[in-house]
């Protein structure tokens, strides 16, 4: 059992790193996708709509498997020999793609909830569109999106456990290995639950602080 404490610590690090990297990349992708969805160029908007609809409509597990095996096939073909995709990398790519699709919808909704008149007021003063984004849209949008983003981050933390299916040694995989080898499934899965619960609680606390910090003044 003692050896597993070290393994759990390593698994925890992997899970946290995976969540942070794919969460950060996913939010960046989500912002871009939201801007694309709201774009005046219909082709861009339609392409982004297609992306978010497909990704949200397919189980995450299948997306992970498709990216892992698809990636392996593609990269092997490219190098002309069998190359196995790194599980962490496959995890980052698939979770980023998924997180981007969900946050894109959140950001889009947040942008749309900003009254058009505020944007027109900025334009009427002669502001450049990107100045309008920075002054009017972005600060309010992030505030509006925070509660929904908190939910999404909690889902993300839990979804990292799916990456263990392609061999990533995260919390989930350590628990599964321990459960099998020591014949104590309850102990190991309870330990894993406690770790995930600690992470999601931490995420909640952080988002509560952010919401307080960025509360709309005067409300």
């Amino acid at each position, binding site marked *: 059992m003692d050896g597993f404490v070290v393994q759990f610590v390593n698994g925890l690090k992997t899970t946290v790193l995976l969540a942070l990297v794919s969460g950060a990349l996913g939010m960046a992708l989500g912002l871009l996708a939201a801007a694309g969805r709201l774009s005046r160029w219909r082709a861009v908007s339609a392409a982004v709509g297609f992306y978010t609809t497909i990704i949200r409509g397919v189980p995450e597990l299948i997306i992970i498997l498709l990216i892992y095996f698809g990636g392996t096939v593609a990269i092997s073909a490219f190098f002309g020999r069998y190359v196995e995709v790194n599980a962490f990398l496959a995890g980052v790519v698939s979770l980023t793609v998924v997180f981007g699709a969900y946050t894109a919808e959140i950001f889009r909704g947040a942008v749309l909830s900003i009254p058009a008149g*505020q944007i027109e007021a900025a334009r009427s003063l002669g502001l450049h569109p990107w100045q309008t984004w920075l002054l009017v849209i972005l600060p309010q949008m992030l505030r509006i999106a925070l509660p929904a983003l908190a939910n999404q981050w909690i889902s993300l933390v839990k979804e990292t456990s799916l990456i263990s299916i392609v061999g990533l040694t995260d919390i989930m995989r350590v628990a599964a290995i321990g459960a099998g080898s020591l014949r104590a499934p309850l102990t190991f899965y309870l330990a894993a639950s406690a770790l995930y619960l600690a992470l999601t609680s931490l995420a909640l606390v952080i988002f509560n602080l952010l919401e307080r910090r960025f509360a709309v003044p005067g409300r």
Partner: protein
Amino acid sequence: MRAAKALSYPAFGVGEPAAEPGIRAERIEKRLGGNDVLRGVELIVRPGEILSILGSSGSGKSTLLRCLNLLTIPDRGDIWVHGEKLAIRAASQHGGPAGILDHRQVRRVRASMGMVFQNFNLWPHKTALENVTEGPVLVKGIRRGAAAELGRHYLAKVGLSDKADAYPRHLSGGQQQRVAIARALAMEPQVLLFDEPTSALDPELVGEVLRVMAALAGEGRTMVIVTHELAFAREVSTRAAFMHGGLIEEESPPQEFFSSPVSGRLRGFLASHR
């Protein structure tokens, strides 16, 4: 028939529109949501003029005003601002939308025309002072310190010196609208456009906004005011225009406009708004 057509008074700067100050709009047409909202409007606003635009709901007043600074792009027609023709692409016969050809020009022209909206449109996450100073800082490149001074000057002008640090949510509607006027003034524009600035206000708050506007009118500023406040329009304007069905149906100096209107529709409109 007196003044029934927009160009019935002598045009200024004949043959040399490039030199003329003020605003000139010719044959402005706009279709929105399947309605012909503007159907070839002609409008001239000369420097120092205070033009009131009246008309019933849906007659196209807001759309016309928004065409002047291209918040709405006309489908057809030409607009000159201070002698400069705005570069716009007309809508195509096949439904292709009208477009702005020179965005830099449009931003410059917008900066020279302050606009005040019915719903104030202040930015709720910025204080009153910040609402006023962001334009000068971002558009004109004025340093923050100088802009704050400028902002306080214009907040004082609308009687809100003590509210500089208040957020819009903590201000009454009348105060918010006065901040919005200060925001427009801080750009030191050559023309002020007002779209029903008091229509969203409780009756007891209308007076404070109208008083600020009357003071601005007294400074000889160029103003275009869409309003339902007939008494105010009669008192401050140098010219009044009546819109109906996407056209200016009648325009004249306020005395004639209100005392001896020509068109039956205007007479009916005035009678129903007494």
